[in-house]
């Protein structure tokens, strides 16, 4: 672990682990975190999933869910036209209801950032009322199999093009082989690459790819590792690996950010991505957020859904609440 390089850029780790930040001190710390009982965690998640969210609570939850969506297109076939269409959908989710909230961000590949920024025009950025952020996946997404130099260039490129948020992937190979220091250093370096010319930073979401980490103990350690290295958000998955986001994994990551808040008073965001397609599922996540981390996490600064098809299902449910009857797929727009 290259101590000299990271010392200045990893203030959280130094604060929590002390000054002598080494691979072994990091490993000792992560291995000392209490374990996760898989059966118990899954039972807890299932229990949260039985909450019955009706009427006014449901209406509030649906609107909130829309405002937490990172509307995503991550295909090899993406084009400027597809991205413009996605942006338009994010700005006007329901063509028949101008009161419908906007999504939090659009999430695209790095080379699509300029088109997203252009399409958003005056609606770009979260500093403004009703603004939408541009999130870019980077660091050789989804596998992360590239040299650090390539990953950093990938990141810097997207930031320079106007990305407000960077969704990076960790090196799962390094993590699984126990090289925590390498994973840590990469996150620290990518965070540094998120620095804009004016000294501000693009928000960093760290994708753990929980489907490849495989065990809940690994997910918990990786979550702590990412936060210690400077993540603003911890994110479950790329959406390219099954299983993607699950409720138990998200509950676990919410427990980590809750514990981090207890320890330091600092709030970290959580983003489940991939596989959340229905309002019913998304409401289960909303319940899990409120009852695990707390209601204040139900805001775009602290929680996002990485999703594409979820939005339309939420819109159908929203229309149903307003009119009392179900419409159909042709009453919501495709992007």
């Amino acid at each position, binding site marked *: 672990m290259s101590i000299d390089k990271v010392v200045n850029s990893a203030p959280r780790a130094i604060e929590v682990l002390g000054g002598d930040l080494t691979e072994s001190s990091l490993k000792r710390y992560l291995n000392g975190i209490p374990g*996760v009982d898989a059966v*118990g965690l899954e039972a807890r998640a299932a229990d949260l999933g039985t909450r019955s*969210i009706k009427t006014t*609570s449901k209406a509030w939850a649906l609107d*909130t869910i829309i405002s937490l969506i990172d509307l995503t297109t991550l295909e090899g076939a993406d084009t400027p036209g597809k991205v413009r269409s996605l942006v338009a959908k994010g700005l006007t989710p329901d063509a028949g209801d101008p009161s419908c909230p906007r999504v939090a961000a659009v999430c695209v590949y790095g080379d699509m950032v300029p088109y997203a920024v252009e399409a958003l025009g005056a609606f770009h950025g979260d500093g403004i009322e009703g603004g939408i952020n541009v999130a870019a996946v980077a660091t050789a997404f989804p596998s992360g199999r590239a040299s650090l130099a390539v990953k950093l260039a990938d990141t810097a490129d997207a930031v320079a093009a106007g990305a407000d948020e960077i969704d990076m992937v960790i090196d799962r190979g390094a993590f699984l082989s126990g090289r925590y220091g390498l994973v840590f250093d990469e996150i620290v370096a990518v965070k540094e690459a998120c620095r804009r010319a004016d000294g501000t930073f693009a928000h960093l979401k760290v994708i753990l790819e929980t489907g490849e980490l495989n065990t809940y103990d690994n997910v918990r350690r990786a979550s702590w590792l990412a936060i210690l290295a400077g993540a603003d958000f911890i994110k479950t998955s790329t959406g390219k690996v099954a299983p993607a986001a699950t409720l138990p994994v998200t509950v676990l990551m919410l427990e980590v950010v809750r514990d981090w808040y207890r320890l330091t008073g600092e709030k970290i965001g959580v983003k489940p991505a991939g596989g959340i397609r229905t309002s019913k599922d998304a409401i289960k996540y909303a319940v899990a957020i*409120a*009852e695990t981390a707390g209601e204040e996490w139900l805001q775009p600064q602290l929680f996002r859904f990485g999703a594409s098809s979820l939005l339309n299902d939420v819109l159908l449910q929203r229309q149903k609440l307003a009119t009392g009857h179900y419409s159909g797929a042709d009453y919501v727009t495709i992007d």
Partner: protein
Amino acid sequence: MSFLEYAAAPESTALLNLQSEYGLFIDGEFVAGSDPTFSTISPATEKHIATIATASAGDVDAAVAAARRAYEKSWSTLSGRERGKYLFRIARLVQERARELAVAESLDNGKPIKESRDVDVPLVAAWFFYYAGWADKLDYAGLGASPRALGVAAQVIPWNFPLLMLAWKIAPALAAGNTVVLKPAETTPLTALLFAEIVQQAGLPAGVVNIVTGAGETGRALVDHPDVNKVAFTGSTAVGREIARSVAGTSKRLTLELGGKGANIVFDDAPIDQAVEGIVRGIFFNQGHVCCAGSRLLVQENIHDEVVERLKTRLQTLRVGDPLDKNTDVGAINSAEQLQRIRQLSDIGEAEGAERWSPACDLPTEGFWFAPTIFTNVSTSSRIARDEIFGPVLSVLTFRTPAEAVAKANNTPYGLSAGIWSDKGSKILAVADKLRAGVIWANTFNQFDPASPFGGYKESGYGREGGKQGLAAYLQAAAAAPAVSATAATAAPAVSATVTKEVAR
């Protein structure tokens, strides 16, 4: 608005088709009771639900006689396979009427609908399915070839899991070939009476299942009846003692499922978030009205503060209120009497110097309610660490070593349940080996399965319910005396000796 104040999501009571008045279920029919009727109320609102008959000694006599006739004429002449068919039919009918039974249970008992819907009623069906499968396989119950039924079983059950306790009692008894007379608790007779309807629907031969309602007097008349061969009781240790005394010296077989003061042991290497969930499930499940509740939390001293802090945070999300709301976690206390006892013991805990804490929660003004409560700074000699409170009250104690945890866990007159929380498998096995409790859960709590025997050590009772062991309580080896009328049978000294010995402990 606050999202966490979830909008009301009440389960509809529309599908309940209750009678305004229920009689006794004797010989396949509902008949009027001879003693004055009583009212069963909803503990959440104190509102009247239905008028219930009281069985006099004469009514109990009629019920036992019906059970005896059914045993001799129909039930004992059926093959195990045929008995199994009836039990499967009951199990399916329970599933078909699951929602109705769940609503009735929550209404009458006060437990949250999510528990009656997701725990009680599914387990009731599971119990009947499980023992239905055993009915034609009794040769493999461990009592040799062709074991025999005992005859008529007198069964008295408590109010905490009214329908589930009924299933625990009736399913193995019928599978083994006995007929039964069951008395549900005075405060929760409703689902037993709905079950009587299911018995009718299933076409069970008349008299195989008889339900007599009433209070302690009815129970006493049933237990003391000279023509019952078997007494099975679940309830308080005090009543259990009385029953053991009355049964001693007769040929009646006896199983007792009594009180508990379960230790939930949390080691410093426990999966902490799941342990907190387990503590909550251990003591606040069913308002703590659970004989095997984890009412004593033994937490390793070095993590005491952290566990208590996390527990308090978690308790703030518990929703106390209308049992029929699908989001309610903690319902109403079953009766004014029980509420009084919980209050009294909690006040004693405070007076003895323990620190009392409850989350802020608005309790309804009508009905019987008690906020989830934690006592810290509890010493082993405190009454709240010794007496069974049978309510949502947790006593937190500490230990330093595994040996001390075992010593403190076993230091109780009871011995029904215990829990161990640790990520280290070898430690779990070593500690479990030394705990004197009938059920020990590792990294979980309050889980039940019909295949797993359940029962206690010491003052928690004797005999096992569930599993193959649960069948043995309703069977005798083929060589034993034929099950004739209990009055004519000679006393079985071995059984009474066991009873006396256990009671003397």
